[in-house]
């Protein structure tokens, strides 16, 4: 187990900056998930921690030791690649043992560790097979097995489940969480899957265009997003964003009318999550609209409602709600459930 500290870490590819000075502290034993849109630099950041990519500027330390100039093999970490990167010409057993024999570990110790990993991951019958004779899920297990035999102080995962089908992904997610609980090793996990991030992380770091937007527990990110980017990135389906005008003691929201709000005047954005937008409740502040699309998911229904001004909002209703396209409905929300963002997109804590 080890803590990982990044300070002012930058990366540029031949002058073109892709990571713009990131400070990040990963505590020992933490499961940190890195999320962000495609191309935001998640893999680059992870590969810099791994030692596969040079750091242009800043320092990275693992277990309080600066590793900037330490080769990947000496950082005492394991990495699971999106492509699995299994050695195609070696049997599963050799794939698992390769790193250990490079470390000149005694044979019986290697054998013990390989057997342990195979048992934990239930790949004992596959040990003599070649990677091409394995299914995607089995390859994934072998890749994880290769990571755990090292008994490293840090695990790095780069979208390890993204090549699996939905069902297998859920299963492996649970297994990975189980593995984490069992080993307790520090993990840094890159994904763009919301559910993976929310369910597995002790903390999530949201990256955007090479900047760290926010880091916090899944609860914090969901309930108190620091800015508009995090607000719309975390949560699926997305938060509804309404633009309005603050006048000092209230906000004018087109369609909904006035919302009490004490603060500076100016352009504002009000965010409401779909599950906080209720349909048909007759109390005070409400907007009229027409249902344009209904998505039935069984336990819940997503209802797209076009307001009179043309804006479409998404509301979530229980699975037994019976709305149809074309229905005229009223939308409302509680002021306490709303998120407020100023004209720069930064969160404003509403005075309660």
């Amino acid at each position, binding site marked *: 187990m080890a803590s990982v500290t990044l300070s002012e870490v930058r990366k540029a590819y031949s002058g073109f900056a892709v990571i713009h000075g990131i400070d990040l502290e990963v505590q020992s034993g933490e499961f940190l998930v890195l999320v962000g849109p495609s191309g935001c630099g998640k893999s680059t950041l992870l590969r810099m921690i791994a030692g596969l990519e040079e750091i242009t500027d800043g320092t990275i330390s693992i277990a309080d030791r600066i590793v900037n100039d330490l080769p*990947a*093999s000496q950082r005492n970490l394991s990495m699971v690649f999106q492509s699995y990167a299994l050695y*195609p010409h070696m049997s599963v057993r050799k794939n698992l043992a390769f790193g250990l024999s490079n470390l000149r570990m005694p044979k019986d110790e290697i054998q013990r560790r390989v057997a342990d990993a195979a048992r934990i991951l239930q790949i004992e019958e596959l040990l003599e097979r070649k990677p091409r004779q394995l299914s995607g899920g089995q390859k994934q297990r072998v890749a994880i097995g290769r990571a755990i035999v090292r008994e490293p102080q840090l695990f790095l995962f780069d979208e390890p489940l993204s090549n699996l089908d939905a069902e297998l992904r859920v299963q492996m997610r649970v297994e990975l969480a189980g593995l984490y609980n069992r080993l307790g090793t520090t993990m840094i996990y890159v994904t763009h899957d919301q559910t993976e991030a929310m369910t597995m992380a002790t903390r999530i770091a949201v990256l955007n265009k090479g900047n760290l937007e926010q880091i916090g527990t899944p609860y914090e990110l969901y309930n108190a997003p620091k800015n508009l980017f995090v607000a719309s990135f975390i949560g699926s389906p997305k938060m509804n964003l309404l633009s309005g005008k603050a006048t000092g003691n209230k906000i004018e929201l087109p369609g909904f009318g006035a919302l009490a709000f004490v603060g500076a005047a100016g352009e504002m954005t009000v965010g409401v999550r779909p599950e906080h937008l209720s349909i048909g409740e007759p109390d005070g502040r409400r907007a009229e609209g027409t249902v344009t699309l209904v998505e039935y998911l069984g336990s819940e229904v997503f209802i797209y409602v076009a307001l009179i001004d043309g804006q479409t909002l998404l509301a979530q209703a229980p699975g037994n709600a019976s709305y149809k396209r074309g229905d005229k409905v009223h939308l409302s929300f509680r002021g306490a459930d709303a998120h407020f963002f100023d004209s720069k997109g930064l969160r404003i804590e509403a005075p309660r």
Partner: protein
Amino acid sequence: MLKFLRRNFAGYAFLSPWLVGFFLLAIGPILASLYLSFTKYNVVRPPQWIGLEHYFYMFEFDDRFKKALQVTFTFVVISVPLKLIFALGVAMALDKGIRAIGWYRALFYLPSILGGSIAVAILWRQLFNYEGVVNSVLSLIGIQGPYWLADPDYALWTLIVLAVWQFGSPMLIFLAGLRAIPQDLYEAAEIDAAGPVKKFFAITVPLLAPVIFFNLVLQMIEAFKSFSGAFIISGGSGAPLDSLLFFTVYLYNEAFSFLRMGYASALAWVLLLIIALFTIVAFWTSKYWVHYENERG
């Protein structure tokens, strides 16, 4: 049959230049040479059937035949591995991502285009002459070079150098093969604490094995058949002291200097069988060291 012909006439018409070439210029002479190898034939008089006599004579009495085999084997065994190692080395250096790689590729490939030509063989003779460029350069650093071409101990080496210098085409094939190895395997190996040597032998070589094998077979066949360099540099006779008596040179001499067409044909068939034998052995051993990615095993 007629219907078949009518339907496919256009196809065969387009194939005809090749078909004519293949049957008249390739299959015909091949079969003729097989027949001639069982005859005594000096071009002037009609061939005279003697059965396997040429073959018996070759293996029992012909010392020049044995010398030719020895020279050819030596050449193949030394030049092919050297050329492949050199080609792989250069390919790996280029694969590391050098600027203007296209220029280097062209530059390194050039000898392969020129190398087989008579002109280059003549140039080679000038270079390795006792007063040639090679010895002048050597004398600059205080070494008196030998009589490269006149000394039987050195003559073959000039041809080996000439062959290795034509490393361009195996290099290009290696380069393509290296490009096909996924980069993340090297990264996984990096994390698995494999050093450069370990990466080379544990990742590069096994994954490149099909390409290495392909190059090995191709270059081996080419080396067995190589002719023009030895012919020019040895003055057409395999001199000095038969040290450049390549199998092909011997064959040429028998055929066109001594007009022993029947015997030369027999020699040609023996060379074909030797090449076939080596190729079969190579394929047979490949089971044990060549790993094919897309093959079920």
